[in-house]
């Protein structure tokens, strides 16, 4: 289980930063920054830039997503924003609007 959990019903109005993994099922209006994995659950709604090592999105994101390792857009994900990661998967059923930058070494 993730080190930090924002469950549904919780709203963070501001930046969230951690060095461990995060799972978000709630709402974040602000930056999400992690040195570990970031998991955005199906119920999550994030209006912010998301940064992590591995970012998996199953909810709604309005903002840019950046990962040092990979980004996974799972089925049901809605991402509006740019993705910057060396690897990107977009599952069937995910919606994505934005640009992708997979150039390595931009960290």
């Amino acid at each position, binding site marked *: 289980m*993730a*080190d930090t*959990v924002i469950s549904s019903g*919780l709203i*963070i109005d*501001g*930046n969230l930063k*951690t060095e*461990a993994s995060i799972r978000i099922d709630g709402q974040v209006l602000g930056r999400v920054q992690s040195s570990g994995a970031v998991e955005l659950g199906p119920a999550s709604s994030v209006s912010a830039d998301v940064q992590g090592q591995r970012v998996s999105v199953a909810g709604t994101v309005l903002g840019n997503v950046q990962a040092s390792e990979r980004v996974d857009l799972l089925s049901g994900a809605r991402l509006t924003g740019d993705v910057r990661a060396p690897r990107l998967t977009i599952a069937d059923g995910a919606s994505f609007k934005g640009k992708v930058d997979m150039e390595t070494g931009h960290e």
Partner: protein
Amino acid sequence: MSEERARMSSVLGATGLVLGNVQGQGDFEVRGRVQGDIVLAGRVLVSAGGVVLGTIEAVHISISGTVRGDLIAEDGVEIAGSGQVEGNVTSPRVAIEAGAKVRGHLRTGEEPPAARRGLPAAPRDEPSEPPALAVPVASESDAPASEPPAPRAAAPRVTLGRDPPPAPEAPDARGPGAKRRRKRRRERERNLESQAPPTDAAGTNPSHVDDPRPEPAPERRPTRPSREAAPEPSLDGGPPERPRRAKPLPTFVKGARGHLRG
């Protein structure tokens, strides 16, 4: 540890940092650091090592870590021996374990915070500004007509508010065009008298002509009278010098004098 996690639905990890406010429902455990307020319909646990710089409002609050800010709980507050609180604690029930450090006011056994929040409303004692505007108008038209001359005591307070500099010091007596102005005014009055039946305000007025300013009404609330009386002076042209005095106060000087210029 795992038990706690199972219990608390949301957790901010030990390395976590929230810059901003946290709100919503559910339980929230802080092991990391929150710089901002936490307003939650649920329980909040600041575990050992957790830091909150900000107010915490929740149903139940448990502190084993550090909080700098007020604690407001609907149900209860528990401060463990390792807890440190710098701020006021408001809750029907408060438990403080031996070893805990608490600095601040403690209010227990009271109504839940909802009632408390009503307190810091604005003090309604002084209707200070609006009256300052309205009083003189009321007095001008009111004092001569319906009331005995106002006591002078109230005058300074009122005049402080705002009296436009072109105070009626019989300014028409001199200056260019004075004669013409007087003449016009007389003409207008004659017209008005012929058209409309003269109000008693017009008749009794001249006694007050000489002291324009210090006749404001006493301390009674001025807003209503002003409204009732306001239309009058515009209708009755009043005796000589009257129009000037009837509306010296509005700040839109142009409009106030417009009728004098024709």
